[in-house]
């Protein structure tokens, strides 16, 4: 099968996922009302913070800071719970049944993850953006930046996929991965600048965060949205490319190790 046909196959998986999830986009919008509360609370916290410090923190105005959090939350809320799906498939044996299908197990999940993510983004971004617009007003994002930002959203989600799928695959060795997920997910939040821009950390922690992939999963893409520049695009995409190679190699290694433990006993 040629590479074009392979690409088309996985694109079809993603498109099917979009169609199937789009049916429930209204319900997702309603359930994302909690996201509105999160952004509202962030606005109050940072408004109080700015009132004591001045007009700019780390080069960001209050509206830019809030839109930074709109971006990080939109990334987080658009991420399907793939770790839990893979954990279930490993534990109940569905993974073994999928091994003889005409697709790569991880490739299938990447495509479905992105498809699901599109719908989740469509249900999360308008809610978060509406609260930001109503509370701090708009920020200037050039029109030509929008396709670039959408592409960056895809590359960012791929990094998240690799991280979450690795956690899900731990089910080959652990009885329950929810505890591991809780810890590693929150670690990603802090080190990625999800809860606070990394530039506000103490120097020693900034150095640690700078050497990890998580800043490319939250902080840098969000920063790009609020202060778009082509120099930032180049730095972000090259950093993401490097970590995509490393993390997908690790993911594939973990997957191969895990699959060795699978026993199939007929149909």
């Amino acid at each position: 099968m040629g590479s074009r046909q392979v690409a088309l196959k996985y694109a079809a998986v993603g498109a099917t996922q979009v169609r199937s999830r789009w049916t429930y986009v209204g319900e997702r919008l309603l359930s994302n009302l909690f996201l509105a509360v999160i952004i509202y609370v962030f606005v109050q916290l940072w408004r109080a913070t700015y009132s004591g410090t001045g007009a700019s923190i780390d080069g960001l105005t209050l509206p830019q800071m809030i839109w930074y959090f709109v971006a990080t939350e939109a990334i987080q809320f658009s991420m399907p719970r793939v770790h839990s799906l893979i954990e279930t498939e490993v534990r109940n044996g569905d993974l073994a049944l999928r091994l003889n299908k005409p697709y790569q197990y991880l490739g299938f999940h990447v495509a479905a993850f992105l498809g699901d993510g599109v719908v989740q983004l469509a249900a999360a971004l308008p809610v978060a953006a509406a609260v930001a617009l109503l509370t701090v007003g708009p920020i200037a994002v050039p029109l030509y930046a929008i396709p670039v930002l959408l592409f960056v959203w895809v590359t960012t989600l791929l990094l998240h996929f690799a991280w979450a799928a690795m956690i899900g695959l731990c089910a080959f060795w652990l009885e329950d991965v929810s505890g591991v997920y809780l810890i590693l997910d929150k670690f990603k939040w802090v080190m990625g600048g999800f809860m606070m821009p990394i530039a506000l950390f103490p120097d020693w922690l900034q150095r640690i965060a700078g050497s990890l992939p998580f800043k490319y999963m939250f902080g840098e893409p969000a920063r790009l949205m609020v202060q778009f520049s082509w120099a930032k695009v180049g730095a972000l995409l090259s950093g993401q490319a490097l970590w995509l190679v490393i993390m997908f190699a690790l993911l594939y290694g973990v997957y191969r190790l895990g699959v060795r433990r699978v026993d199939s006993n007929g149909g």
Partner: protein
Amino acid sequence: MAGSKFFGFIGGYWRANWAAAMEYRASFLMQFFGMFLNDGIWVLFWSLYFTRFPMVKGWTLQDLIMLWSIVTASFGLAFGVFYNAARLPELVVQGQLDYYLALPKPVLLHLLVSQFRFLNLGDALFGPLLLLFFAKLTLVKLLLYILVVLCGTFIFLGFAVTVGSLVFFLGQAEGLAGNLVGVLVHFATYPTGIFSKGVRVLLFTLIPAGLVATLPVQILRDFNWGDLGLLVVGAVGFASLGALLFTLGLRRYESGNLMMMRQ
């Protein structure tokens, strides 16, 4: 129910729940310590925040640590030990109250004590340990801490049962109840001082985040009987409201005619 029978009934359930947790020990420990470290990371975030901005609206890191030690303990007790309070809408919609209705025990109490949630037991331990390591404690403060945590537990429980009971009246409202409990927890983990006056009124009434978080911190920081009285009234009020709505709602409950093992 006589006192000894009452406590024997609750104790029996808790022993059984604990035995179930020990049956899946690895899973229990992973979830327990997972949540414990999860809370620790939130406190790390606040430490980073207050390192950069030492005081926000009169709140310092010490106050935030106190707030987290109270909220995690009361939330952990409410949903770790009485997990079915959070599952109430799901149980009603699926017709799973039948089991409790058929037995000669108070339905709401029986429902609440019958399931632990390992994850939230991690919260319940995190709170006291945080206090022990990061706050200056006296015996009086320790007793006050226990009291405010218990009041917070009743408020969380009362609130969860109140919003969960809405499902008796509204039908499919599982998502709504879960969201409202999420909103309460979210507001409770931030200093109330950052919100406008109008929102603060809301946080001391409809969504009692101020009652489970800010007021207890105030009581431990600068004790006065008025605040303590207000907290106790809040706890009794929310617990009673939950019990009342559940009782009224139960009259509208229709059996699920389920033939299945109770989970």
